[in-house]
C-alpha cells in the first residue's frame, strides 16, 4: 500500500527527467560557471573566481549601457507601447462595427503569429533608409533619416510593439468583456465622461489583468533576441545592444563564457523576480 503514491507518480518521470536535465541542469550550471573564468578558447582549465565577473560587469561601461538599453527597450515597448496600444485596441473594438473589428484583429494577430525572424525582416525593411517609413515621410514632406542608425533602440522598440501588441489586445478584450454592462451604463447616465469612466471604473475593474499582462509582456521583452539581432545586430556600435545581445557577444565574440554567463544569471534573477510577482498577482488556486 505504501508503494501506491510512487506508482501513481510514475507517469511524471519522463517530464521530470527532461526538466531536470535540460532546464534545471543548465540553470544550476549557469549559477556555477558565472563564478568561474571559463573561456571558449585558450585555457583548458577554468578556475573559480568568486564575484569577479559581477564586479567586472558593474565596472564595465558596455554592460551598464546594455542595462540602460534593456530598461529603455522594456519601458518603451512593453510598459508603454504594447500595454497602452493593446488596451486602446481592445476598447475601440468594443464599439466598432464587426467587419472593422475582425479586420483589425486579423492584422494585429498575424503580426504576432509570424516567426520572430520574419517579423525582424519586415520591420528592418520598414525602417531602412530606402524603406517604407522614409517613403511616407518624403510623401508628407517631412524630414527623413536613417532610423536604424540614428535611433536604433526606438526602431527595435517599435518593432517589438508591432509584434507583441496582439497579446495585450487579447488579454484586455477578455477582461473588458467581463465588466458588467450595467456598471458602465449607470456611470454614463450619471454623466461620467469617457476618460473619467476609464479612470474610475474600467481600470480598477481590470487591474488584475493589467498586472498579469504587464508581467508577461515584461518577461517576454526581457528575452527578445532574434528580433534585435536581425534588425541591427545590437548596433550601430552598441546602441541597441540589450542584455541578451550583450551576453551573446561576451560569450561568443569575446569568448568569455564565464562573464557572459554571469550576465545571463543576472537576467535570470530579474526574470525570476518578475515571475514571482506574477505568481503573486495571479494568486492562482493550484
Amino acid at each position, binding site marked *: 500500500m505504501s508503494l501506491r503514491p510512487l506508482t501513481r507518480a510514475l507517469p511524471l518521470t519522463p517530464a*521530470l527527467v527532461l526538466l531536470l536535465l535540460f532546464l534545471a541542469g543548465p540553470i544550476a550550471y549557469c549559477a556555477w560557471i558565472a563564478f568561474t573564468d571559463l573561456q571558449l578558447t585558450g585555457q583548458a582549465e577554468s578556475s573559480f573566481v568568486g564575484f569577479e565577473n559581477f564586479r567586472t560587469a558593474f565596472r564595465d561601461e558596455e554592460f551598464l549601457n546594455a542595462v540602460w538599453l534593456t530598461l529603455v527597450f522594456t519601458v518603451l515597448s512593453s510598459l508603454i507601447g504594447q500595454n497602452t496600444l493593446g488596451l486602446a485596441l481592445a476598447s475601440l473594438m468594443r464599439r466598432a462595427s464587426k467587419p472593422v473589428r475582425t479586420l483589425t484583429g486579423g492584422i494585429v494577430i498575424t503580426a504576432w503569429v509570424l516567426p520572430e525572424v520574419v517579423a525582424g525582416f519586415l520591420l528592418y525593411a520598414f525602417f531602412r533608409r530606402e524603406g517604407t517609413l522614409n517613403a511616407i515621410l518624403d510623401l508628407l514632406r517631412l524630414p527623413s533619416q536613417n532610423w536604424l542608425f540614428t535611433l536604433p533602440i526606438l526602431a527595435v522598440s517599435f518593432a517589438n510593439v508591432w509584434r507583441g501588441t496582439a497579446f495585450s489586445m487579447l488579454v484586455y478584450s477578455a477582461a473588458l468583456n467581463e465588466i458588467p454592462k450595467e456598471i458602465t451604463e449607470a456611470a454614463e447616465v450619471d454623466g461620467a465622461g469617457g476618460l473619467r469612466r476609464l479612470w474610475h471604473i474600467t481600470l480598477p475593474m481590470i487591474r488584475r489583468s493589467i498586472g498579469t499582462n504587464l508581467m508577461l509582456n515584461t518577461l517576454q521583452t526581457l528575452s527578445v533576441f532574434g528580433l534585435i539581432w536581425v534588425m541591427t545586430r545590437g548596433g550601430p556600435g552598441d546602441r541597441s545592444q540589450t542584455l541578451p545581445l550583450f551576453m551573446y557577444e561576451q560569450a561568443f565574440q569575446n569568448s568569455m563564457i564565464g562573464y557572459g554567463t554571469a550576465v*545571463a544569471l543576472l537576467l535570470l534573477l530579474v526574470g525570476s523576480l518578475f515571475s514571482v510577482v506574477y505568481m503573486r498577482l495571479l494568486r492562482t488556486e493550484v
Partner: protein
Amino acid sequence: MSDRRRNRRLAADAGLLVLASTFLLPLAWVVLSALDPHADLRVKVPDGLTTAHFEAILTEDITFTPLLNSLLLCGGGTALTVVCAALAAYPLSRFRSRLNRPFLLTILFATSLPITAIMVPVYALFVQVDLIDTLQGTILFFAASQLPFAIWLMKNFMDGVPRELEEAAWTDGANSLQSLTRIVLPLMGPGVAVVTVFAFVMMWGNFFVPFMLLLTPDQMPASVSINEFFGNRGMVAYGQLAAFSIVYSTPVILLYVLVARRLGGGFALGGAVKG
C-alpha cells in the same frame, strides 16, 4: 440606433482603421515584394506580377532542406513535449498529493523564466556532453523549454474531464495508462490539439535555440537559414527574401487559424492569464 451611438461607432471604426493600417504596412511589404519583379525595401504597387521569386527559392538548398529540418526539429520536439506533458498532467490532475501544489507552482514559475538567458550555459553544457550540433540534443532542449507551459495547460484541460467516466473503466480492471489513453485523452481532444499546436508554433518560430545549438549548415531550420539571404556579399534579393518569408510563415498562420477559436481568440491565454 441613436445618432450618438452611430457617431461613436464611426469614430471607433476610423481609429481602428488608422491603427490597423500601421500594422498592415510591413505585412503589405512582404506580400507585394514577393510578387513584384522589381522588389526593393518600400511598400509599392508592383509594376507587374511575377512568380519568379517563388520559383527561384523553391529549391532543395534554399527552401526544402531548411523546411524539412524545421519539421524534424519541431515535429520531434512537439511529439516529445505532448507525450511527456500528457503523462505528467495525469497524476497531477487525478490524484491528491502533498507534492502537487509545490510542483505546480514550480512549473508555473518556470513558464515565465526568460529561456534566452540560459542559452550560453546550455551551449557550454552541450559541448561537454557532446550534444552540440545534434538534432536530438536540440529536440530534447526544445521539449524541455516548452514542457512547463505544456504541463500547465494540459493539467487545466484534464481537470475539465469528469472523473466518473474513468471510474467505470477502473472497475473493469483498466489501469491508469489505459484510462488515460482510451478515455481521458480522447475526451480532451481539442485541449491536446491546442497544446500540440502551441508547442509547434513556438518552436517553428524560435531562432535563438537552433542558432546556438546547431552548427552544420545542412541541419539549420528555416528560422536560421533565412539569414543566408543577408549573409552573402552583394545585393540582397528582397523579392526572394519576401517569398521565402511567406513560405516559411504560412504553416504557423494556418495552424493558428485552426485552433484560434478553441480558447476564445488567443490560445496563449488558456491557463496563463486567468485573472
